């Protein structure tokens, strides 16, 4: 490595550079600076949160069935038990925000506008999936909805999301990038590179760490010597730990984090504590999980908990909740039919698309949070 002794540029120059980079994009606000309501969620929002979690659960259950029917080639991954994390966090984002969604975060895809039929088609390798069969299971992202899809190597997407956030920073845009990683991938060098880079540049990014207790079969105590949330400080930004099975808690944490990011205050690491209720993949029987642990977490199922809370605290009737569930199930069934009707891809397309002929543009995702509708209609954001 060539010695870089900085002889040419003085330390003062470096500081200037650093200041300019970190300072760029210091926000003008444009958010509702006074957190007017103690809760930022309307009744409709709450119903949506429930709906999206239920949709994720129903779609993944359908997918498992298809897998067991031999219709899903390769491996099968799901995020059973973790629905609150992807739904709660992605619900916060605005249309022009961007995501890199990971394999246990199907809920985020649904929030942003991907329909269950396309998800199922991708698992089955059909032409109607977002990758047209080029990649399988959760390795997809609809560019038209502002998502760059994941790769197998973890946590590579942390750096890609950082790159998108870098662009927002350089251009002074009040946009946020959000991505996910499991607690296991925090052991990887690229996690460090991403956290460090984001911290140095003060990027508008929300890192959502899903601590689901196991990285495949490896328990936490073999993955790290200190709780990952405590590492955030070492990179120069806050770390927040929340109950990953409480969708509103996740939502709140994500909301605060995106607000920080938009204000130019830089990254946040949100550690969501949860439990992976299925195997690493369908091929994994989870024999390494102590049964009592499994039992304990089963009591804290995020969807069940929220359905109870909707009735108990937010004025929903049990029927209302059930009808949402039923509606979702019917919708997912209908989507399954659509997916099954999608043909297998034409082999001739196998060699197509290696190179781009022209640049592409990421589109905007759906933003169902009522805030965005209110803001668009009401104020001057």
């Amino acid at each position: 490595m060539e010695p870089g002794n900085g002889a040419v540029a003085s330390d003062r120059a470096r500081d200037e550079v650093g200041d300019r980079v970190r300072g760029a994009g210091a926000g003008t606000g444009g958010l509702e600076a006074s957190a007017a309501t103690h809760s930022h969620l309307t009744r409709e929002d709450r119903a949506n949160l429930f709906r999206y979690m239920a949709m994720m659960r129903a779609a993944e259950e359908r997918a498992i069935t298809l897998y067991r029917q031999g219709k899903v080639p390769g491996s099968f991954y799901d995020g059973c038990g973790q629905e609150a994390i992807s739904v709660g966090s992605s619900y916060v984002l605005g249309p022009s925000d961007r995501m890199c969604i990971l394999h246990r975060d199907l809920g985020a895809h649904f929030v942003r506008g991907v329909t269950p039929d396309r998800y199922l088609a991708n698992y089955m390798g059909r032409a109607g999936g977002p990758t047209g069969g080029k990649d399988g299971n959760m390795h997809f992202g609809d560019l038209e909805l502002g998502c760059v899809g994941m790769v197998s190597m973890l946590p590579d997407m942390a750096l890609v999301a950082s790159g998108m956030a870098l662009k927002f920073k350089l251009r002074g845009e009040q946009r946020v990038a959000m991505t996910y990683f499991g607690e296991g991938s925090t052991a990887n060098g690229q996690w460090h590179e991403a956290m460090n880079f984001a911290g140095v540049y003060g990027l508008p990014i929300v890192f959502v760490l899903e601590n689901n207790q196991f990285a495949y079969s490896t328990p936490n105590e073999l993955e790290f010597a200190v709780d990952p949330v405590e590492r955030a400080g070492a990179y120069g930004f806050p770390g927040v730990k929340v109950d990953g099975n409480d969708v509103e808690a996740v939502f709140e944490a994500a909301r605060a984090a995106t607000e920080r990011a938009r204000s130019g205050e830089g990254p946040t690491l949100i550690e969501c504590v949860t439990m992976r209720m299925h195997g690493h993949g369908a091929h994994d029987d989870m024999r390494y999980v102590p049964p009592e642990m499994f039992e304990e977490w089963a009591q804290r199922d995020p969807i069940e908990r929220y359905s109870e809370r909707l009735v108990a605290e937010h004025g929903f009737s049990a029927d209302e909740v059930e009808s949402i569930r039923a509606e979702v199930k019917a919708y997912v069934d209908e989507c399954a039919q659509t997916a099954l009707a999608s043909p297998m891809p034409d082999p001739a397309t196998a060699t197509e698309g290696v190179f781009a002929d022209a640049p592409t543009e990421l589109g905007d995702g759906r933003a169902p949070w009522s805030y965005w509708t209110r803001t668009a209609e009401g104020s001057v954001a």
Partner: protein
Amino acid sequence: MAEMTYLEAISDGLREEMRRDESVLCIGEDIGAFGGAFKVTDGFIEEFGAGRVLDTPLAENAIIGTAVGAAAEGLRPVCEMQFADFISCGFDQLVNVAAKLHYRQGVAVPMVVRLPSGGGFSGGPFHSQNPEAWFLQSPGLRVVAPATADDAKGLLTAAIRDPNPVCYMEHKGLYRYVKGEVPEGEHSVELGRARVAREGEEMSVITYGSAVHLALDAAEELGEDIEVIDLRSLCPLDTDAILASARKTGKVLVAHEATQSCGVGAEVAALVAAEAFEDLDAPVRRLTAPDVPIPFSPPLEQAVLPQLDDMKEACRELLAY
């Protein structure tokens, strides 16, 4: 036109594109305040500001990975690996994310990775490599390797404008030793087009990068009717030019400084054998470094890297066949 060194041409090309297109930015280690380990970006931060010339931590995956994200969002990052050898520290992002994103998802990744490569100055095993073959085995990456100052500027411009990730092999040994006339202002050389560096009838040397100069010198000194084809682009490869030359002369020597096994030479040789078999008057030969890490001590390094005498001998043999 202006006369400049190969290095100056790279700077010039980069500067021109940054002036022309504000989505172009530079990202790498020591490139901003320090002007780059080889001074390619000297003066850039003063002209373009810290928002377009980013000094990064020592993190190659971060450089490349964030470049992917930024490119997906419409910027055109030009990453610098301080030495081509360090691409191994960023290899994952390059081959698994950048290379495959369009194929899998239709997302174009318009970025350039500048890779100062090559040996000949006792750089040792980690500062002397020519790793282009790694990239050629990763579908989705374009690879270029200029040999002249003109092409250094022209190919960089084309690389920046291409909507795909491009590995730009800049040979360190050519930085100050190769000079040439370079068009001023906007100058782009189409990717995938080889150049006839020297016309000949008796044999063809198909080559790129530093070996182009070896071939031209050898042809001069031998005084023989040797054709030299400068490939310039390795992916896409100008198969038409290769085959036209092979068919014309019937004798082909493929030459490169990179090591032998499964290098560009192997690819070209296979192509010629398959498509021009009936025009061959001699077996296709290769002149390359052997499959050895590049050693440090001068006599060892010279024994490994192809020298002018090696080129002359290889040409003589093939001519005599």
